């Protein structure tokens, strides 16, 4: 099947110059907020190192820590489920809901706080098909849910939308006045709408930011308090996590909470950092632990450290390509630089353009709070795409040709001379033909000099 690749989607995004400017500046503002929160912390770089090392250690002992977590959570009265893939995950969630909510004459109701894992598993669509009503309660998630769009950012799901777009969406779905774009009024409308959903819900589903092996408890970070509201009002709490969310001990947690919010939004800490250990009397708590390709990535030596990711989104905010192409141009649950190293593990053919959607500038690796060498992994995925014969044929043969020429000095010298000669003789309209030469769409070619440096050297210095 042919999917539109990143360059095509990015080009379409860039057609609207002003909107691209706005998108870039909005995310750059978040990056600057992050800088302002990071610079005053003298030990910030040490925290990054520590966070990276704890995660490295955990990934190397993941089997043991996962079992320790399960044992302790079970002791706490939590029911732990294991899912090998998205299908199993969705099935498990559905069965928990069907078994715990015997509702008559209506659909079971689920409120969800933000969980990229359930996006990855396409849980919403699956549950809706099985007569379960799903309401995303994070404001940004609710907006994109109304619009039937995937999130475009893992922390700021509706960052691709302007307040005017949100106004239109709310007019259609919540009956706000047409043309209303005041954030205060729109947020209040969402708040009232969501209150009704919270109060009427049967089940609350949350993600998990950190699962602590030592205690069997877990932590959910939000800014809106929507996870807490849902969990405390519902009879059943389902929490879903990828296997990589484990940290060994409770005292490791503060390393991550200090890094997460600063890196994500420039806050010292998320507004709500909620710890969940055991179900309230008379209620149920379930944890679903999901693999879905993660153990395969863990087995790839060059790429396993991508599993250290704590989903802060800083690599998206800093990425000059993401800021100018938008989250949807990546066509993967997790966009941006981190998505470009996670996605080829899931489907190399479909996502083969993503490792090339980068200049390898390295900003992502320097901003990453757990020191994932993202740009190094992008380079390595490129080689795997090349080896898997997934490069466009023209590019592949051009590369092979270039490699030959550049390993033979005489051929190189002659080709250079001929190319420069041609560039000098041919008319500008031809050398800068935009359909043949993408360079020339927005740029002039350099002037082709009569002499190369080598020729100058031979004439003047030999």
């Amino acid at each position, binding site marked *: 099947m042919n999917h539109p690749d990143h360059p095509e989607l990015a080009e379409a995004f860039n057609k609207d110059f002003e909107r691209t400017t706005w998108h870039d500046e909005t995310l750059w503002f978040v990056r600057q907020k992050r800088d302002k929160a990071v610079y005053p912390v003298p030990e910030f770089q040490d925290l990054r190192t520590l966070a990276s090392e704890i995660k490295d250690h955990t990934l190397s002992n993941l089997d043991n820590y996962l079992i320790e977590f399960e044992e302790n959570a079970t002791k706490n009265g939590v029911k732990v489920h294991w899912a090998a893939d998205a299908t199993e995950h969705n099935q498990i969630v559905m069965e928990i809901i069907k078994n715990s909510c015997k509702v008559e004459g209506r659909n079971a109701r689920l409120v969800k706080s933000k969980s990229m894992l359930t996006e990855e598993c396409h849980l919403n669509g699956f549950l809706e098909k099985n007569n379960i009503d799903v309401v995303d309660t994070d404001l940004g998630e609710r907006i994109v849910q109304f619009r039937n769009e995937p999130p475009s950012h893992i922390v700021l799901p509706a960052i691709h939308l302007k307040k005017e777009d949100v106004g239109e969406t709310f007019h259609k779905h919540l009956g706000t006045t047409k043309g209303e774009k005041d954030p205060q009024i729109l947020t209040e409308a969402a708040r009232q709408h969501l209150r009704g959903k919270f109060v009427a819900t049967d089940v609350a589903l949350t993600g998990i930011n950190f699962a602590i092996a030592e205690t069997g408890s877990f932590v959910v970070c939000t800014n809106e308090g929507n996870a807490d509201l849902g969990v405390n009002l519902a009879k059943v709490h389902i929490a879903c996590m990828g296997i990589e969310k484990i940290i060994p001990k409770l005292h490791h947690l503060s390393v991550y909470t200090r890094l997460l919010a600063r890196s994500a939004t420039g806050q010292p800490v998320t507004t709500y950092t909620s710890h969940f250990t055991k179900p309230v009397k008379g209620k149920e708590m379930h944890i679903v632990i999901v693999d879905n390709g993660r153990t395969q990535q863990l087995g790839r030596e060059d790429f396993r450290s991508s599993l250290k990711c704590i989903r802060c989104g800083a690599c998206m905010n800093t990425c000059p390509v993401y800021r100018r192409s938008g989250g949807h141009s990546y066509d993967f649950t997790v966009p941006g630089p981190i998505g470009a190293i996670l996605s080829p593990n899931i489907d190399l053919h479909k996502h083969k353009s993503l490792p090339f959607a980068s200049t390898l500038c390295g900003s992502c690796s320097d901003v990453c709070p757990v020191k994932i060498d993202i740009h190094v992994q992008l380079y390595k995925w490129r080689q795997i795409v090349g080896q898997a014969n997934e*490069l466009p044929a023209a590019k592949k043969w051009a590369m092979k040709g*270039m490699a030959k020429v550049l390993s033979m*000095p005489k051929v190189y010298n002659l080709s250079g001379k001929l190319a420069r000669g041609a560039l000098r003789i041919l008319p500008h309209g031809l050398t800068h033909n935009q359909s043949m030469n*993408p360079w020339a769409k*927005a*740029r002039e070619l350099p002037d082709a000099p009569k002499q190369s440096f080598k020729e100058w050297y031979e004439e003047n210095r030999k």
Partner: protein
Amino acid sequence: MKVALFIPCYVDQFYPNVGVSTLQLLEKLGVEVVFPMKQTCCGQPMANGGCEQDSKGVYEHFVETFSEFDYVVTPSGSCTYHIKKHYDIIEQTPAVQKVRKSIYELVDFIENVLKIEEIPNSFPHKVGLHLSCHGQRGLRQANASEITGVRDGQISKLLRKLNGIELTELERNDECCGFGGMFCVTEEAVSARMGQDRIADHLRNGTKVLTGGDVSCLMHLEGIVKRQNAPIKVMHIAEILNGNQP
């Protein structure tokens, strides 16, 4: 001290003046420089394109050309980074290890091998410095804004000491220009937009001469300057340090 000059392929073909300035500058600084005639390229274009296996012949040719020298100096942070970082896929013979250690970006060589902290030239212009990512984050030649708010680095240190110079204070001090090798054509839309945004930052803040350590970034940015007829002259750092005037 046996020092070789490496002039990257695209500099050789399109920016011979950068090569000439590099050679003259090194000679003025008292270095005896050899230019091996059989040199071609470091192999980066193919490798970044996902074909590093095809580059092996180019890598081997590079090593064969330069392994007899104590230092290999080049006016490119990007090629230097590539040789240091990515020549790990060929057999690590003593010659390969030596070349990976002896390759130096020009300004790094001036400051850290020659230990020269000041070049007594005058350059009375408002200069905008474009930090190439491979020089800055790859070789750590300049601070990265992700790590610290202090803007400092090897090139700006030398530039600041030129007589009469004024350096542009940019809004985004170290954002990538969008060249990125093959990226500049395969992701043309984003690449061009990134370059346009860099030039706009320089124009808003008064840059008259735009410089940097990598001709590749500068070629891309100059392409945009020329298309827009923007009042900016683009010069490589070697040309400025050599005393050339705009």
